[in-house]
């Protein structure tokens, strides 16, 4: 239950910060509503919902997602059978931040090659030649398909 309480607190904090910034935008009158109206409503409503979530988290029994009705279209994965390697998603997160930072400097092909090699290694690919081939393949295919053929500008 602790998780829900923490997320409620995080959402409340987000709402408060948002409302503080939103004070800059004028509300004007009801007949000529200004750009501050919706931010005020959204911020207050999120704050209220966060408090609701906090109360629910304290009283209710653990809420269960009804059979993966997440609606994302993505399927729920199977229950975890072995101990997951918890570190690697964090390493990949750091790598993604680096990727976004390096894209404009190194260019699309070099940085995409690097992220693919790193990501496939982190996901358990052994050795180097398979990830390297995969990286070259993905970077080159994406470049040829999008930049050359479709004329989509890439960094």
């Amino acid at each position, binding site marked *: 239950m602790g998780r829900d309480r923490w997320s409620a607190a995080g959402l409340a904090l987000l709402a408060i910060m948002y409302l503080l910034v939103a004070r800059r*935008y004028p509300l004007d009158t009801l007949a000529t509503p200004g750009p501050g109206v*919706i931010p005020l409503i959204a911020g207050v409503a999120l704050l209220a919902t966060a408090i609701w979530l906090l109360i629910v988290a304290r009283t209710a029994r653990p809420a269960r997602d009804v059979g993966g009705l997440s609606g994302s279209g993505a399927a729920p994965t199977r229950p975890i059978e072995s101990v997951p390697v918890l570190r690697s998603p964090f390493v990949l997160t750091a790598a993604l931040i680096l990727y976004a930072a390096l894209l404009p400097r190194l260019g699309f092909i070099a940085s995409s090659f690097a992220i693919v090699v790193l990501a496939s290694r982190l996901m358990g690919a052994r050795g180097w030649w398979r990830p390297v081939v995969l990286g070259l393949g993905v970077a080159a295919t994406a470049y040829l398909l999008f930049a050359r053929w479709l004329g989509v500008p890439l960094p």
Partner: protein
Amino acid sequence: MSELFVALTPANLLACFVGTVLGTIVGVLPGLGPAGAMALVLPLTIKLGPTAGLIMLAGIYYGAMYGGSTTSILVNVPGEAASVVTTIDGYRLARKGRAGAALAIAAIASFVAGTISVVALQVAAPFVARAALAFGPAEYFAFALLGLVLLANLTGGSRAKPLAMVLTGLMLSTVGMDPLGGTVRFTFDLAGAQAGLSFVAVTTGLFGVAEVLASMAEPAASSAVARVRFRDLYPNREELRRSVPPMLRGTVLGFLVGLVPGPAATIASFVSYGIEKKVSRHRRELGTGAIEGVAGPEAANNAAAGGGMIPLLSLGLPFTPSTAVLLSGMLLMSVTPGPFLLRDHPSVFWGVIGSFYVGNVMLLLLNLPLVGVFARVATIPPKYLMPGVLVLCAVAAYSDNNNIFDVWVMVVAGIAGWAMRALDFSPAPLVLGLVLGPVLERSLLQALTIARGEVRGLWASGPAAVMLAAAVVAFVAPGLVALVRRSATRTT
């Protein structure tokens, strides 16, 4: 009407083919869902022009409904949330050696439901569009609000969580230029944020990058695929006969659920299974490998995909993440969906509807013989697949505005989406809040201005009043029901 045949030009046929194949593959792959995949190919479809581009996007959308059932039946791993129920009886049928029959029935049910729902869509959409011409800002506001409230109710689990996500999406939608006055809000002087947060970047982050991160935290499911030979694909007469009633029930039900905001395809399949458990002549067998448990839900999720197109095409309001991606695709191709779509872009409107007919036939022809091939796609190890998905996400996010800022948005959305998954928050309501936010804001402010500041103006018209009342009831009712139930159990 003759514009229906626009779908038959070679370019559009090719777009439909590519879309349905991609959709089937996405449907087969656990993890990557249709909304994420559609966002990934957006840059590609924009180059194709509105009609072909939208035909391809729509093909992915309903193709995924076909593909999702394949792995549910063969591997017991649903490729889509909408195919979760299919695992119950589908996999047991496969264990009984009737995998081929289950796959064939799933494909046929999808085809029948898809085709019937297109006919209904074709008949209903122009009427709804004409009725919607009378919609003013107050009605739009009421309808969008009702949609968001229903969405929070239907997502399952705690209601506070989806509501919080809707509101977070609404908040994110206020970043950038405001839709009426042009005041720049919440950009913190970042030039890239002026145009608002890119919807494509947020979607690829939440549904693509987050999925990759989440897949790393969980070991890959071992996948042993049952081999299916072509001659095993014929269901026997008994199975066919038993499938017809659930198929038709699922179609009607799915179409109706599709009209309502929420993860329609998923809900429709669950409700259909529930109904079969109540009314089917073979209800005792459900859960032990009954063909009805495949035919009903598979028809329902495809019909829901068709039903969901009505609010999008005739009102311009998407209520599922997939139709939201379709909407943003339309806007990027400067086609505004809504009541005027039929008048301004008849070839887009009818071309897309026409492609549904063609696409359903293609899917049936593709899925029956190639079912084994698609099933094997599911066994591609994530370590080779997911890195490519990351790069595609970056391409899609960047090409939305040719802006590196959007890549940052994608990375942040990806990390946030991963955290949301871990904390049991669904990303779908956030995406819809983000899409419907500007609609809500514009219509509310316009309605207030028209009513000269009288808040009563929001419910002055009949339809607006009814929809607002429905929104209030939908918001309050579940809480009341729970209260009544709790006190009832206390007294007995």
